[in-house]
């Protein structure tokens, strides 16, 4: 596991997403969810292979299915620590599914950002010990072999492509700051029509 910086430091979210937009290849599927979806949509027009998962019950499951159906394509899901904590079992499911083309990016800000920044149960602030849940260690314990943690935006910027290209499934914990006033993202359009458009984009 690479561990590029101390966990106490946090990166602004937007530069981290800008790096992903910069290094993302045209054939790669990107699934932004929750706060990352909100900021992702502000950064420019959507790519045909973006799947903005709004509204969403959980992003990891959808990404597992896509990675299984399209082993020829890399699938990058942008999750949050709150979402992951609701679905920790998905990490075991990912390893069991044997999907080397799946990359899980967890934007770990320690809070449920879109509901008003309440600490998650995994946040240090919510715990007597003050120690946050170590999501990267959990991923590794579930069987992920490619596990990375970044808390420095320039380091992430320099190594993002290398990390995405590593044999997966890959888990990346990105220690980011919560966005002040960050609300739930608006859907960019009716969900069924977007699903059809996305499926058409995958067939091209």
């Amino acid at each position: 596991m690479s561990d590029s910086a101390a966990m106490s430091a946090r990166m602004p979210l937007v530069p981290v997403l800008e790096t992903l937009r910069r290094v993302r290849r045209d054939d790669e599927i990107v699934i932004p969810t929750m706060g990352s979806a909100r900021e992702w949509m502000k950064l420019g027009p959507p790519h045909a292979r973006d799947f903005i998962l709004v509204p969403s019950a959980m992003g990891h499951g959808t990404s597992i299915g896509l990675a299984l159906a399209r082993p020829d394509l890399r699938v990058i899901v942008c999750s949050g620590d709150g979402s992951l904590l609701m679905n920790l079992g998905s990490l075991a499911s990912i390893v069991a599914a044997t999907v080397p083309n799946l990359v899980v990016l967890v934007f770990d800000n320690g809070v449920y950002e879109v509901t008003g920044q309440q600490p998650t149960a995994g946040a240090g602030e919510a715990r007597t010990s003050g120690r946050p849940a170590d999501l990267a260690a959990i991923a590794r314990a579930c069987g992920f072999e490619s596990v990375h943690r970044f808390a420095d935006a320039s380091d992430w910027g320099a190594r993002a492509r290398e990390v995405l290209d590593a044999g997966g499934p890959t888990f990346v914990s990105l220690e980011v700051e919560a966005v002040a006033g960050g609300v739930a993202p608006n859907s960019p359009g009716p969900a069924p029509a977007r699903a059809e458009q996305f499926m058409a984009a995958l067939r091209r």
Partner: protein
Amino acid sequence: MFSGEQIASLFTDVGVTHVITVPDSTIGRWEPAIRASSRLRLVRVCREGEAWQVAAGLHLGGATPIVMIQCTGLFESGDALRNVIHDWKIPVFSIIGYRSYLDQAKLPGDTCLVFTEPILDAWKIDYRLITSPAELDVIRDHFTDCRSTKRAGAALIGE
């Protein structure tokens, strides 16, 4: 009710590619035959809500998934199936084990009998209740009809 071989054969006949499952004591016994099929991929998930989302991703990627869970898992997974079937209109078909429908001696008073069908109705899932081994073709016909009309559906298997 059915052998694993019957179920695996049915799934391959109708074009299923992936079976996403959390087992129960009935449908779990079908696993070896499903795993033995070269045309089916068994996908194990940790809870039933996850199964609907995995199926959604498979559908988006061009595969033909089926969700195979018990009714207790159906209860657990309501929000996920609502999101997949109703928000995104992704027509996932499911096989749902109906605990205590045929055998009410094992768990007397099991409230699965009270809630399973009303919950399927509440989630607007078009289902067929399967209570005898002679009804394998009911599943086949319902799956085929749902697929051709791009609707979600379910087969509720009495247990």
